[in-house]
Structure formats: C-alpha cells, structure tokens
C-alpha cells in the first residue's frame, strides 16, 4: 500500500490566498462586519446591566462576545459550505480539478484561508470588546482575573473515608458492612463517585466537611477570595446553622465565620494579601451545628468551597479565550468545507447545520449519559423500534460530545464573563484537538469526497 504523500506548500498557499480573497472581495464580509459591529458596539448600549461592576463586565464580555462568536460561527460554517460547492456548481472547479494539486491540498488551502480570515476578524472583535471595557472606566483593578485553586487529591481521598464513616455510623448496626470488605469497598466507591461528581450530598447535623487547597509555589499570591455555597435540604423553615473555618492544616486559623440561612446559600470571605505567607496549603472546614433534629445542609463537594487567587489581567484572558474560540471556528470551517466537497451548497449547509444541532442537543441529552438502563426507563421501556435505534443514537451522541469536549472543557466565554482565568493548557488543547487535529481528519473525508465527485 502506498503511503499518502504530504501536502505541498505552494498548492496549499495558492488555495489559502483564494480562500482569503473570495470573502474579502465579496459583499459577504461587509455584511458580516456590519452585524459584528452591531453585536459588539450597539448591543451593550441596549442591554441594561445590574449596576454592579461584575454585572457590567459579564454583559460586555460574555454576552457581547457570545453574540459575536455566534455570528462568526454561523458565517464560518456557511462560508465553508459555499467555498468548494460554489466553485463546483459555478463550473470554476474544473481547472483546479485537472491540475496536479491533490484534493487534500485543495481542501487544506481553502481551510487555512478561512481560518486566517476568522483569526483576523476575531482579533478585531476581541480588541473592540477590550476597548469598550476600558471606555466604560473599568480599569485593571476592576477587570482583574482570578483562578480557582484545585483541591488537593490526597485530602479528597481522606474526605471520602470520613464521609463513608459518617454514613456507616448513621446506619442501623445490622446493616453496617462490618466484616464485609467487599461491601465496604463498594460503598466507598459509591461515596467517591458521589463526592467527585455533581451531586449535592447531605451533611447531617454534627458532621463536618473538609477541603484542602494546595497553594501555588512562589511568592504570596496576593489578595484571595474564599467562596462557600450551600443549600438547605428542607426549605427555609428548617434553617441552616454552621461554622466555617479557614486554617493552615493543623495550624493557625486564618478566618472564621458563622453560616446561617440569612446568607442565602452563598458566603464570600475576602482574604488580604499576605494571609497565606509561608503556607503551602489551606484547609477549609464546615461543620453543621444544628441539633440532632435539625436540617442537613446540601453540598456539592467540588463547588461548595472554592478558593481563588489573582491570575493576571483581562488582556491575557481575552487572548486565551480567542485561542479557544478560534478552535471552534476552525472546526466549523472544516465541517462546512467537507460538506461542501460532497454536496451542493443547499444540501451542504443543511447537513452541516444539522450536525451542529446534533452536537448542541447531544450535550444535554440523556443519550450521552452513562446509564443506558435509566435512560430506557425514563423513556418508556426498552422495546420497539426505538430500542433498536437507541444504542446507535447513544454512540453518535457520545462521539459528538467527545469531538467538542476539548472546546467545552475550556469554558472560555463563561469564565471570561465571570472574571475567572481561562486555563491556558485547556485553551491550547482545544486549539490542538478541535482546532487542528479534528479538522485535518475532516479534511481527509473532504478530500475523498472531492476525489469521487464528478464534474459533468
């Protein structure tokens, strides 16, 4: 079997130049720029914020940028669909098809041209958003970005053991797993899954929950913020009463506070710079001080306690957001181009849009859940024609989820709007996988379609 030859630079660059020139010399770009201008410049004027700095920032960063990214996404997808299919239907493709340029080189060139245009437009949009933020008098102090410190993995396992012991202590003596290591291990695994997942677990009166955060090495990270989120299990009437303590592990207390129902489920403790001087970890402890008949407090372990420290400024966060968004646009350009290689423009646009719709739906669908049996139960049993389709649908949903997971995990726009640092490694990973690797795979499909396509 002959190995495929790598693409040559000149044919690829020729296609890229064409891919850049085509939209720039059409009315398409002007229409797009006008819509983007409306999104970035006019939309913030129309939106009413909540009067707070954080709310204004969220509006300017997340909503405005979100609208601009949505516009860019749709236009990129459809421009990709039109690029090759338009040439085929307009009988402009014959010259290229009879040239010595290989189909993958033709695809790659057009894709690079689209991505380059997207990168340029995205840079302008991000700059416009940044200028707007500054024009509203929001300086570096207002737009400082923070990052949440991760939980210490070893302390998490210790907490699993503690929660397990508490749970066993609450069980009737005859139900306890004493002398049954296998059952105890299964219970521990179940507690571990719950504690590490997104479930809200009850903290009964008299019990406590611990979190340990590893501090970054180096100088004091600066003023930090500790946030505690909780829910009352039985509604307002039962109430919540607990104590929240921040301390060095087996060391001095750094902050202490009572937590009650009046806190409305959220506590924020600012910690001045120097609080953590000399420490390499911080422990947070919450104890439910209600009496034996009191209410449990519901906590989602990974979100209940969060410690954030400063992590750079807005420009760097915007740049990382740009990387993640460029990954998405690259993928959409590739999807559109590949569909355009196989089909006429209307069919390509429909197919590409349908794939995007499936990705959006699959992300929130039970088809992507890990418990097929529970999904079958909730959807009226396991028989019939739909039962034959469900395994396939499940695989498709998971494949689509996996395809966009790198971009989703970066959570770029949400974090930007919340003033939280976008993870640099996550952004680069999104660019590498969703922005380059997956598009190149789609390119192979597109090239194969182009090779087979007839030009009557």
């Amino acid at each position, binding site marked *: 079997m002959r190995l495929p030859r790598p693409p*040559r630079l*000149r*044919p690829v*660059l*020729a*296609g890229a*130049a*064409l891919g850049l*020139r*085509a939209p720039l*010399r*059409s009315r398409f770009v002007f229409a797009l720029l006008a819509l983007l201008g409306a999104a970035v410049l006019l939309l913030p004027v129309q939106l009413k914020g909540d009067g707070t700095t954080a709310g204004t920032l969220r509006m300017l960063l997340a909503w405005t940028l979100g609208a601009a990214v949505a516009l860019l996404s749709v236009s990129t997808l459809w421009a990709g669909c039109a690029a090759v299919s338009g040439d085929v239907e*307009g*009988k*402009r493709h*014959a*010259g*290229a*098809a*009879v*040239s*010595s*340029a*290989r189909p993958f080189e*033709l695809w790659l060139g057009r894709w690079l041209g689209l991505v380059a245009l997207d990168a340029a437009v995205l840079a302008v949009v991000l700059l416009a958003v940044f200028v707007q933020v500054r024009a509203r008098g929001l300086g570096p102090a207002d737009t400082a970005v923070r990052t949440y410190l991760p939980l210490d993995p070893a302390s998490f396992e210790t907490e699993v053991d503690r929660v397990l012991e508490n749970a066993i202590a609450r069980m009737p003596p005859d139900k306890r797993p004493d002398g049954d290591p296998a059952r105890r291990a299964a219970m521990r695994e179940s507690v571990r899954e719950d504690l590490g997942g997104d479930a809200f677990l009850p903290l009964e009166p008299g019990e406590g929950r611990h979190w340990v955060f590893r501090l970054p090495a180096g100088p004091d990270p600066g003023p930090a913020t500790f946030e505690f989120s909780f829910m009352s299990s039985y509604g307002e009437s039962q109430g919540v009463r607990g104590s929240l303590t921040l301390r060095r592990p087996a060391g001095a207390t750094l902050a202490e506070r009572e937590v009650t129902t009046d806190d409305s489920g959220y506590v924020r403790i600012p910690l001045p710079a120097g609080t953590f001087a000399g420490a390499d970890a911080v422990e947070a402890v919450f104890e439910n001080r209600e009496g034996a008949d009191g209410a449990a407090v519901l906590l989602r372990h990974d979100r209940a306690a969060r410690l954030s420290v400063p992590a750079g400024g807005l420009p760097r966060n915007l740049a990382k957001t740009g990387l993640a968004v460029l990954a998405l646009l690259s993928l959409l350009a590739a999807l559109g181009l590949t569909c355009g290689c196989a089909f006429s423009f209307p069919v390509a646009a429909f197919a590409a849009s349908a794939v995007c719709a499936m990705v959006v739906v699959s992300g929130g669908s039970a088809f992507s859940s890990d418990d097929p049996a529970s999904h079958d139960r909730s959807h009226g049993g396991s028989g019939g024609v739909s039962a034959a389709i469900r395994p396939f649908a499940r695989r498709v949903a998971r494949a689509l989820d996996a395809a966009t997971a790198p971009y989703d995990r970066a959570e770029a726009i949400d974090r930007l709007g919340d003033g939280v640092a976008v993870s640099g490694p996550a952004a680069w990973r999104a660019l590498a996988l969703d922005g380059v690797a997956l598009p190149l795979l789609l390119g192979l499909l597109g090239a194969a379609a182009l*090779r087979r396509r*007839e*030009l*009557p």
Partner: protein
Amino acid sequence: MNENNEPAFEATGLRKVFRDFWGRPRTVAVDGVSLRAAPGEVVGLLGPNGSGKSTTIKMLLGLLRPSAGSVRLFGRDPRDPDARARVGYLPELSNLHKFLTPRETLAYYAGLFDLPAATRRKRIAALLERVGLSGPGADRPVGEFSKGMARRVGLAQALLNDPALVVLDEPTSGLDPIGRREVKDLILDLGRMGKTVLLSSHLLAEVSDVCTRVAILAGGRVRAEGRLADLLEERDRIRFTAAGLPDAAVPRVKESIAAAGAASVSVDHPAATLEDYFLDVVGGAAK
C-alpha cells in the same frame, strides 16, 4: 514530447451512462468510444451538439468516471497528479473566479501546479503577452471582461504548466476573427513544438486548418476517425489535371496518357470539403 513515446492519451471502449437520483439510467452520452493520440498529434474531435464530445473529454481527464471502458493519460490513471501535471485544459465553459485579475488567476493556477516563483513570474508575463492581455487588462477583475477576453485568460491558464497534452474544448468560442486566427496559429505552434493537442470544436474550417487527425462523434459513438487527408479523399473518383487540354480530348487522353509524354500532366483524386464529409457522416448516422 512524451519521453516514452507512449500515447498521450488512450481511451478504450468508453461508455458513460448518466443516471437519475434513484440510479436509473437516463442518458447514454458516450457508447463505446475508443480514441488515442500519439505524441505530437493535433487531434480534432467533431460532432453535433449532444454527441458526447465534452463528456468524452471529461472522462479522458478524470472529471467523470466512465460507466465502462478504460482511460490512460501518459500511461497512468487520469486522476494521478503526475499525469495531470502534464495536461493543460480549457473547458467549454471556463468560468473563472470573477474577483481575480488575470494575473492573480494565473498566479493561483501556477501555485496549484507547484511552479517555483521565478518560473511563475516569467511564464505569466509571457502568456499574458501571448494572449493579448499584457496591458492594464492584466490587473482588472475578470468579472469585468467580455466572454472573449475571459476565454483568452482561460487559454493562458491551459498553457501555464507547459503541458505535453493540451485539451481545448471550443477554444475560439466568443473570440473575434483575429482572436480565432491567433488561436489557430497557437495550436499550430503547439503542434510544431511536439505537444499533443486535442481540439473539440464546432467550427469545421478551423479544425481542418490545424488538425492532423479527426474523430467524428455522433450519438455517443465514433462514426469516423483517421488522418484528415485520408478521410477527405474520394477514392472512387480520379481527377486528371492537364494544362491547356481541351475537354474534347479527355477520352483520347485517357488512352494516350502514357504515350503522349505531356510535361505538365498530373493525375490526382478530388477531395470533398470537410463540411460536406461531416454532413454526410452525421446524416448517415442519423439514418
């Protein structure tokens, strides 16, 4: 020139059936066409509208998949990039990118053919000069051009990679008489340079002026093929040509031609015009 002296192209038993959306056969556009061209030949492909000329050409170049038969370009699959590197193609409808200038158009195709920058610059300048677009027209968008001017750009594009095989589908379409003459001269030059040319045209006069061999298609089949001189020769008639011989002497000339010793007597076979021959063949196929 083809180094191995193998045919520039060779088609055997080509058949193309166009099907509808459901896969049912709708039209048999080409039915059993076999065609080949030796290196350096100028081959004309003639036929009325719908005879399968363009379809045959597209199968030769790999733009359409034959329903049956085989095609080789320089001994290779027509989709092989190395084979295509030696082909220049001017389609019947050479729609170019309207927003590109002729210079940018040629630069684009030069890039696709992986031509180095220096070669690209020289060749683009020479071709623009050759097709009469070396002035300000070279930097105007093709969308502003007339059909004839756009055709000139297409012709330049077909010659950009200095191809060994040039396929021209209606090359003079839209050109004025001067342009048509220039194209004919160009084709003759290409033949003299040893390039193989496949020319498809409705204009019989221009085919007869430049082609060494023709193939006539009708109804998707080759109805006649061969050297132009052989096809047009009417072997059932002999023409005597004599200087100053009166008509009454013709019977005696036939008896005494050998003994008469006339110095300027020549005998040859009259040739019909290509147009007459073409109509005869096509008319016969229709019956």
